[in-house]
């Protein structure tokens, strides 16, 4: 006999992660430890070639000042002194300017841009209409018979971000599941509730200019998820998020 049709509707949802670009700042103990280890290593280390050369040239200079022995010898050898090289390197270093860790988007708290919070994971949240309500959710799309759940999730990503996104899904297995029953008014025999399967994908490139973003979208960190998601949904989603 054929299996009874299941009364659950299946959805595939995609959790699109943008990996952090910078390391997180060190804690107080980590910083102290790092400073201590550096000092230890400095005290235990030997002189490098450059430092030996510098010391020798300083000695030569001193000898030249006190008495005029090495005039004929030294003038042939040292064209560029080690001290000059160091000064040149220092100047070059001062000219180099590192990119700021806290970008403009951080200061203005603009949650729609990808340039915020460069040291933590950012997730995509989209506003979707379910039943009567407009909710903030991870982008989800209903499962069609005949396709794998992973394809459903990819389709969900494609509907909200357009094609040609360089996102990588690592495995075929879902990361989490959230099931809920419809309110009694809509519940029928065939449609008891819905199950949402979550998949994870990693954004390879941060270039979203080609993507056509429909509807409202947000990029949020794990802590800010609580502002937007409902508590039950949030609990299940938090289970598979690393931070």
């Amino acid at each position, binding site marked *: 006999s054929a299996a009874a049709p299941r009364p659950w509707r299946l959805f595939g949802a995609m959790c699109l992660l943008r*990996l952090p670009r*910078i*390391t997180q700042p060190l804690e107080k103990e980590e910083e102290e430890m790092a400073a201590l280890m550096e000092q230890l290593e400095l005290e235990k280390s030997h002189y490098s070639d450059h430092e030996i050369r510098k010391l020798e040239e300083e000695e030569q200079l001193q000898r030249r000042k006190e008495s005029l022995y090495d005039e004929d010898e030294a003038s042939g050898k040292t064209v560029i002194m080690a001290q000059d090289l160091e000064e040149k390197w220092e100047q070059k270093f001062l000219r180099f300017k590192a990119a700021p860790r806290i970008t403009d988007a951080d200061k203005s708290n603009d949650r729609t841009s990808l340039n915020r919070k460069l040291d933590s*994971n950012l997730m995509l949240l989209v506003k979707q209409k379910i039943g009567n309500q407009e909710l903030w959710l991870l982008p989800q799309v209903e499962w069609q018979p005949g396709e794998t759940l992973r394809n459903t999730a990819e389709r969900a990503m494609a509907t909200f971000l357009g094609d040609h996104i360089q996102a990588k899904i*690592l*495995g075929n*297995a879902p990361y989490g599941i959230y099931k809920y029953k419809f309110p009694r008014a809509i519940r029928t025999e065939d449609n008891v509730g819905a199950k949402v399967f979550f998949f*994870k994908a990693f954004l390879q490139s941060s270039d979203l200019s080609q993507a056509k973003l429909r509807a409202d979208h947000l990029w949020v960190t794990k802590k800010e998820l609580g502002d937007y998601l409902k508590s039950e949904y949030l609990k299940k989603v938090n289970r598979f998020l*690393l931070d």
Partner: protein
Amino acid sequence: DALLGCHRSYRSRPTHGIGKFKYLLPKEVPKRKKEKVQMKEIDAGTEYQYGDINIQMTSYDLCLVEHFAQHVHRLCNRLSIRVNESYAMPTKTNEVLFLEERGSKMQLDAVLTTHQRVVQIRGLSSTFAPILLEIIQSNQPEGVHLLVKQHTEADFKSRLKSRPELEELLAQMS
């Protein structure tokens, strides 16, 4: 007293050679240096297991790469994933020459060394692989490139040095 009164087992005494045990152990055959043929497992077959996988980490900074390789190795130990080997590839040195063409042509040199460490893993189940990859990715330090690929014969051969004289003689013989 105690210092003068010890009985040294001299050759004439019956207790000579009392502590010897090596004659009781089984004989060890001396190991010969042979090239080991690599073993491969089922790849995504019915058992959903990956074969040999290489995790290659490259960077300019030696300490960082070594510490990261150690970290990955220990992580695999804790997660009871079998680690076949964890080895280092030879370092490559690059000399960077700047040609400044303002007035006098100067050549500033910088010497960069690229280090590579490889951790070889076997028996990774395909349900666990994405989790492991995510953990390693999120723990990646700055300046370290990560590459995860399957182990091939070419990877194995790249570790061995070629002997040109042997090859010449073989070519002469055949």
